[in-house]
C-alpha cells in the first residue's frame, strides 16, 4: 500500500515512542502495519532530513552493537506537529468513512 505523504507523520509517531535510527524506523512502520504499509527504504532518509530541517526531529550519534549509528529523536515542535497531523488524519478518516458508508 502506498504511503502517499503520510510517511513524515508515521516517522514522528515512531520517534514519539523512543529515539531510533533509520533502519529500525523502517522496520517498525512495516511491523506495526502488519506489512501493509510498504515503502522503498531509500526514501525514508530524505523524509527524515526534511523533518530535521523543519526542526521536528534532531539527530545525534549513538552506538548500537559496537557500531556508530545516526539516531533521531523527536523535538517539542515535532510533538506539536504530530498532534496536529493526528487530529487532521482523524478528521479526514471520519469524512472518508462517512462518504464510503453512504455509498454502500
Amino acid at each position: 500500500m502506498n504511503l502517499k505523504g503520510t510517511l513524515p507523520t508515521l516517522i514522528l509517531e515512531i520517534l514519539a515512542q523512543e529515539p531510533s535510527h533509520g533502519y529500525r524506523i523502517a522496520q517498525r512502520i512495516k511491523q506495526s502495519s502488519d506489512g501493509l504499509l510498504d515503502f522503498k527504504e531509500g526514501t525514508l532518509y530524505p523524509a527524515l532530513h526534511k523533518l530535521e530541517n523543519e526542526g521536528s526531529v534532531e539527530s545525534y550519534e549513538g552506538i548500537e552493537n559496537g557500531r556508530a549509528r545516526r539516531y533521531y529523536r523527536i523535538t517539542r515542535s515535532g510533538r506539536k506537529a504530530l498532534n496536529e497531523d493526528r487530529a487532521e488524519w482523524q478528521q479526514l478518516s471520519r469524512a472518508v468513512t462517512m462518504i464510503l458508508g453512504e455509498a454502500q
Partner: protein
Amino acid sequence: MTTSLDRWLNQAVKRLSQDSADLVRREIQEHYDSAREAALQQGIDPQQADLMALQALGDPCAANRQYRKVLLTSSEARVLRQSDAESRLICSNGWAKWVLLSTPGTLLLISAISLAMHQSKLALGVLVLSVLMTLFFIVPLLPIYTPGKGRIFRVIKWAMMIGSIVVLFGPDGWNWAWLNTCCLYPVIYMEWKRMMIRRKLPISRWPKQLYL
C-alpha cells in the same frame, strides 16, 4: 554486491554537495548493513541477503530526486561559500572598506548638489546608484540576525530595487525589461538559491548572508 551498492549510492548522491553526499553514503551504508545482517540471521544466503537489502532501498534516481529537495546540492553549497563576497570585499582591507562605505554618502551628496543645480535627471541617476550601493555594500554590516528581520530586509531590498528601475526608466520601463532582466539575473539567481538553502538548513546553521 558491494559494487551494486556503490552504483546505487553514486546515482543517489548525484549533484549533491560533498558534505551531503558523505552523509547519504554513511546512512545508506549503515541501513544496508543492518538489513543484510537481519537477512543473514534469518538463514538467508549471503548473496540473496545482499540482493534483498539493495532491493529494499528502491530506485536510486527517485531517492536522488528526494535528497536534492532536502539536502544541499553542489551548486547551492557553492553559492553558500561565495555569497559573502560583498562582506569579504568590504572587510578585505581598511582602505577598500572606507571607500565602499563612504561612496553611497558621497553619491547622495552629489545627487543633492545636482538637484540644487537643476540637473534633475543626473540627480535621479546618482540617487539610484547611491541606493543600490547602500543595499549591496552597507547592509551586510547591519545586525540582521533573525529570520523576521531578514524577511523585512528582503522585502525592503526588492522594493528598493524595483523602485530604482521604475525611477530610472519611468514609463519606458517595459521597453527596457529585457535589459533589466539581464542585469538582475545574477541577483535573482542568487536570491532563488538562497531561498532554497534557507529551506534546507536549520536556522541554527544559517550564516549571516542567509538572513539578507
